[in-house]
């Protein structure tokens, strides 16, 4: 029995484990700050990654050779990017570590511990954004948690088309405040007028803001961000009434 308990605890500590876990508690590392493991060719990609770990003890990020990377299929490349960040993350990316209930962050945590996506991985995501969104939709259909890596991918590709699906997910998981951060980053990156003119933009993204700026989270802020994100979505899809400027 003790062994079974230990095994269960170890499983709980694994990144990506617990897709069916309940809402995050008030302390500790919430499940939505973990990675979502895509199931597309996961075993093959994991075997591929192991093949590249032949030179030294490594922590996740040994890059595949160009030839090896090119040999992966489109879906495998996506899985590879989602579970195997190839680049080292700077020592002082402090906001990566902290999660504070009741606060909204300007930027998402990297989610990959001491590593981050490489330029070729980001290039892959951007140049295949439609496919990437298709993959993300498939992964998240019915999922209880959208991992931090999926939201990062959405930001990298400026995936504004994902806003309604994310808003629907947020209704199920209102504790996942990273959804709100994702919305804000999408709008800030596109300099969406309605958001830029709001009282939230300057403290988080304005000329004098700090990189790891935070604001208080409350229901009013949440409602504003979601509504503004939906307006941004409508604007991008051309459904918004004419005369509203985004830039």
């Amino acid at each position: 029995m003790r062994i079974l308990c230990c095994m269960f605890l170890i499983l709980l500590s694994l990144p990506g484990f617990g897709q069916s876990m309940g809402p995050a508690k008030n302390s500790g590392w919430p499940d939505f700050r973990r990675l979502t493991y895509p199931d597309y060719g996961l075993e093959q990609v994991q075997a591929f990654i192991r093949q590249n770990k032949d030179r030294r003890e490594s922590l996740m990020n040994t890059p595949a050779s160009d030839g090896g990377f090119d040999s992966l299929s489109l879906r495998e490349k996506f899985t590879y990017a989602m579970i195997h960040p190839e680049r080292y993350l700077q020592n002082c990316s402090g906001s990566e570590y902290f999660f504070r209930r009741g606060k909204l962050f300007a930027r998402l945590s990297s989610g990959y511990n001491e590593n981050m996506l490489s330029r070729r991985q980001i290039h892959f995501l951007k140049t295949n954004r439609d496919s990437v969104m298709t993959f993300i939709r498939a992964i998240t259909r019915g999922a209880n948690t959208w991992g931090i890596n999926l939201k990062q991918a959405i930001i990298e590709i400026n995936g504004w088309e994902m806003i309604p699906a994310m808003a629907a997910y947020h209704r199920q998981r209102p504790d996942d405040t990273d959804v709100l951060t994702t919305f804000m980053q999408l709008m800030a990156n596109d300099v969406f007028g309605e958001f830029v003119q709001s009282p939230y933009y300057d403290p988080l993204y304005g000329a004098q803001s700090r990189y790891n700026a935070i604001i208080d989270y409350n229901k009013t802020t949440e409602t504003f961000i979601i509504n503004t994100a939906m307006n941004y979505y409508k604007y991008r899809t051309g459904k918004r009434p004419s005369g509203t400027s985004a830039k």
Partner: protein
Amino acid sequence: MAVNRTGIILLFILLYSGIFAQENRFIKIPAGTYEVGLSTSVENPLRKVTVKAFFIAATELTNTAFETFVLATGYKTEAERFKDALVFEPGLEEFQWLDDSTGGITGKMDHPVTGISFTDALAYCKWAGVRLPTLDEWEIAARAGSPTTYFAGATYENIARYANIWHGFDHLQSDTTDGFMYTAPVARFKPNPLGLYDVFGNVFEFCSGALPRDKGRRVAHARGGSWWCSKNACNFFNGTDIGSVNPHASFSNLGFRVVKEQ
């Protein structure tokens, strides 16, 4: 004119020998119980720790010192072997770095060694018969008895007197406000009350030890901020924050200072 020239040469010799003396100086930290952490910090909470006496280098380890190790042993750094050092140049977005494997140090022999990984730092320590400070030892030495995150005299506002940091708002434009865009020679800024130079700024300093957030993984930790760190991004030039980095990562803002037992 000749007098002036002689004077300049003498001044240079004095200055150089002064820096050289600092490089080889160790500061004794007596055994005792010290307060570390801050009451407002989740990751580094206020607590008391007891340590044995140790001697910590007054300066960060220089290129000169590391070169001695390389010449004596033929050691190849991880960045040399795997061509994965990361360097910076103005124009990059926050927290973005460039790939580079050259790591030129011409004219920078009195600067802290960078472009080395935690693993490389351990190799040097093993060869030199020294070690890295623990996370607590580093903080005890850096804060020098101050109850705040800064040592006595230093504040968030006047940190530029003590630390080579980035003064630009972001990293899109170069910044040489304090005379240095990248590393500075060691001991160029004012020391802390114990006589330790560059505990804040210049380069992050590797420490030994683990944190709960490591969750059992092998992670390197470095403290004190660096020339890259600005008040708007990073902001780690203090005695509280603790960074985390892959133990194989080699950045041009990562270095170390050493400790010996006696």
